[in-house]
C-alpha cells in the first residue's frame, strides 16, 4: 500500500482486495454490542472539508472513531479558510498540530495530490473527493457492495449512468473496477462524456436500454439540474426519459442485478422513487458499507498490517 490514497488508479489488485477483505472483517464489528476497536488509539485523523459533504464527513468520522482515533473536523465554512487562508497554510497548521492522517474533500481536482506531494505535511492523505477528479473510497465501497451481492467482481458487467464528465465517482469506479476485472459500460448523453473517453479502460454507450439486459449492477450518478443551463441537455424531462432509471427500465435488468447510487439522489430526475426504494436497490446499504471501507483504509494507511481484528477474538 502507498502512504496515501489519492486515486483509485494507484491501487494494485492486491491492494484493493486487501482493503475489501479488511473492510469485510471490520464490518463484523457492526454486529457486536461494542462497535469499537483500540487500533488507532492516540492517533489523530483530521477531516479537512473545503466543500459541504455531511454524508462523507460523518462516514469518515464514524470510521475513525470506531478505530479509537481522535478526530478533528476542519470545515472551510466559518474557518480561516473562508477568510482567504491558503491550502498551504491550513496544511502547515494541521501538521503543527500533529495530524497522522488528513482526509480531504476539496472543490479543486488534484488538491489532495498537491497536499500529499508538497512536503507541507508528513501524515497520510486520503482523498475524500476532489473536484471532478476522483473519490476513491466511494469506488471501494461500491466494489464492496457489489462483492456482497454478486460474489466476485471479476468478470461482472457494471453499467454507470449519468454525468460522467463532472463525476469523480465515475472516474474512480472505472479505474478500480478495471483493476478488479469487471467490465464497465458508461452511459450518458455525448455531452456528458469527456473528450478522450475512448482511452479509458471501459466502454461507453449513448443508449441506456441497449445495455440493461447484460448488467449485473447499474450505478446511477447524480445529475445537477443546472447542467441544462449550460446546454448539456435540453431539459430535466428529456434527461429522465432518455437516461433515468424507472420501473420499465428496471424490468429489463436480469433478476439478480442490483441498483446503486452514490447519493444524494435527485428522485425523479436520474432515478424514480419506486426504483430507489425497490428491493434490488442497495443504496442505503452502500452508506453502511462506506464506514467499513473507510475503517479499512484508515487502518491500512496508518500502519495496520495484521488481520484487522487480530487479538480481538471472535467471541470477545
Amino acid at each position, binding site marked *: 500500500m502507498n502512504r496515501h490514497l489519492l486515486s483509485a488508479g494507484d491501487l494494485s489488485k492486491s491492494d484493493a482486495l486487501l482493503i475489501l477483505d479488511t473492510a469485510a472483517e471490520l464490518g463484523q464489528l457492526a454486529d457486536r454490542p461494542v462497535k469499537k476497536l483500540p487500533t488507532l488509539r492516540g492517533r489523530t485523523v483530521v477531516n479537512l472539508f473545503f466543500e459541504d459533504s455531511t454524508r462523507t464527513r460523518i462516514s469518515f468520522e464514524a470510521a475513525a472513531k470506531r478505530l479509537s482515533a481522535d478526530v478533528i473536523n476542519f470545515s472551510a465554512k466559518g474557518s480561516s479558510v473562508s477568510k482567504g487562508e*491558503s491550502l498551504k497554510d491550513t496544511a502547515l497548521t494541521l501538521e503543527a498540530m500533529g495530524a497522522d492522517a488528513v482526509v480531504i474533500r476539496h472543490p479543486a481536482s*488534484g488538491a489532495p495530490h*498537491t497536499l500529499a*506531494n508538497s512536503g507541507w505535511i508528513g501524515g497520510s492523505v486520503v482523498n475524500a473527493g476532489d473536484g471532478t477528479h476522483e473519490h476513491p473510497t466511494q469506488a471501494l465501497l461500491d466494489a464492496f457492495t457489489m462483492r456482497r451481492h454478486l460474489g466476485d467482481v471479476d468478470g461482472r458487467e457494471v453499467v454507470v449512468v449519468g454525468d460522467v464528465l463532472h463525476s469523480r465517482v465515475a*472516474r474512480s469506479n472505472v479505474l478500480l473496477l478495471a483493476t478488479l476485472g469487471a467490465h464497465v459500460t458508461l452511459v450518458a448523453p455525448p455531452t456528458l462524456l*469527456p*473528450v*478522450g473517453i475512448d482511452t479509458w479502460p471501459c466502454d461507453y454507450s449513448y443508449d441506456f436500454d441497449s445495455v440493461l439486459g447484460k448488467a449485473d449492477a447499474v450505478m446511477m450518478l447524480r445529475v445537477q439540474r443546472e447542467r441544462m443551463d449550460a446546454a448539456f441537455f435540453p431539459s430535466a424531462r428529456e434527461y429522465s426519459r432518455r437516461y433515468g432509471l424507472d420501473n420499465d427500465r428496471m424490468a429489463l435488468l436480469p433478476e439478480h442485478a442490483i441498483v446503486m447510487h452514490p447519493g444524494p439522489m435527485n428522485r425523479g430526475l436520474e432515478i424514480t422513487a419506486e426504483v430507489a426504494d425497490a428491493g434490488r436497490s442497495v443504496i442505503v446499504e452502500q452508506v453502511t458499507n462506506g464506514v467499513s471501507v473507510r475503517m479499512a483504509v484508515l487502518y491500512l494507511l496508518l500502519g495496520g498490517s495484521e488481520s484487522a481484528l487480530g487479538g480481538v477474538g471472535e467471541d470477545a
Partner: protein
Amino acid sequence: MSNESILIKGARILDEESTDVLVADGRIRDIGSGLSAGDAEVLDAYGLVLLPGLVDLHTHLREPGREDAETVESGTAAAAIGGYTAVHAMANTDPVADTAGVVEQVWHLGRRAGHCDVHPVGAVTVGLDGRQLAELGAMADSVARVRVFSDDGRCVSDAVLMRRALEYVKAFDGVVAQHAQEPRLTEASQMNEGEVSSMLGLRGWPAVAEEAVIARDVLLAGHVGSRVHICHVSTAGSVEIIRWAKGKGIDVTAEVTPHHLLLTDELVRTYDPRYKVNPPLRTADDVTAVRRGLADGTIDAVATDHAPHPVEDKDCEWASAAMGMVGLETALPVVAQAMVETGLLDWVGVADRMSVRPAAIGRLQTQGRPIERGEPANLCLVDPAADHFVDPSRFASRSRNSPFAGETFAARSVATMLRGQLTARDGKLV
C-alpha cells in the same frame, strides 16, 4: 555610445569557421582571423557560436503594477543573461499599456535599466476589454514607437473589432498580435482537453478554441490586406492553418514558445502548477508539429511568453494557480535541445527564428542584423556544450516559476552584447 572596444577571439559566426570579431564604438569594426587586439578587451570565444542578439516578441515585464513578480529592471536583466538584446513588453500591466503615457513609461524604464532594448507592445483595446480600440496611433507616434499591438492574455474575439484593428494599424506599418483563444470554448479551462484532462478531471482547453480564431484571423487579414501575427501557437492544427494561409499569400507570421517545443500535457498528471500555462501544454503530436512548423518556417519565431509569478501564485492547488512560466533565461538552451540537437535547425536557423525574423516582425531597425562589418554590435555568444543546470534560485528574474528547474541543458548563452557593450557574461550581469 561607448568608446571601448572588444575583440571576440575564435568565435564561430553562425557556426562557421572560427574567426575574430572586433567590436568598437557600438559596431562591428572588423571580422577576420588573427585580428590584433590593440587596447581592446579580449573575449576568448573558442568553441563558442556567435549569434545576433536574441529578440523576444513576447515578454511580460509586469511593471507597472506587479513589481512583486517582475520589474523592467529584473526582467531585462534576465533577458540579457538569456542572450537577448531586445524584448517586446506585453501590454497587460496595471495600468494596461493602452495609452502613449504608459508605453512611454515602460520605454523609459527600459532605457534606464539599460540591459536590453525594451519595445512596449500596445493594447489593441482600452483596458484589454475587447470593446473599444485603444489610441493605437498615439502609441505608434510616441517615443516608444509602438509597432506591435496585442491584448495578450485575452483574445480580440469580436470579429469586427479585430478587422478594424488589422486595418487601422496599416497606417503606421503596425501588426496585431493575436492571443488566439475563443473565450466561450475556454471558460474556466485548466489544461489541454484530451486524454489527460479526461482522467484528471480538469476543465479542458480544446485545440479548436485556438485554431478557430487563427482560421478566422488569417482570413480577415487576407480580406483587408493586413498583416497579422499569431502569438504562442500550440497545436498541430494551428500550424496547418498558418501553413495554408502562407501558401495563399496571406501576410501572417507566428511564434511558438520554448515550452511548447519541449513539454506535453502528460506533465499535468503531477498537478504541479509550474506546468500551468496558457495556452496549455499540448500532446506529443502537437510538439512534433510545432517543431516541424518552426523548422520549415511556417512558424517564424520563438517567443518566450516569459510570465513571472510570485511564489504564492504557484504554491497552491492547480485550480487556484496562475498561468504562465518564466522563460527568458532558459529559452536558448531549450531551443537548442528541441531544434538543434534534433537536427531540425542549425545555428543559422536559430539566429533566424530567435533574432532576424522577430526583429523584422517588430520592425526593429538595429536588431536581428547580419554579423558583418559596420553592423550594430548586438550579439550573443552561445556555448553549445555548457552543460547548463537550471537553478531558478539563481535567476535574475524576480520569479522562479520555471518548468525546467533541475534540468540540465547542453547549450547556454554565455555573453551578450548590446551596441558593443557587454550586458551579461557567464550567467551574470556585467
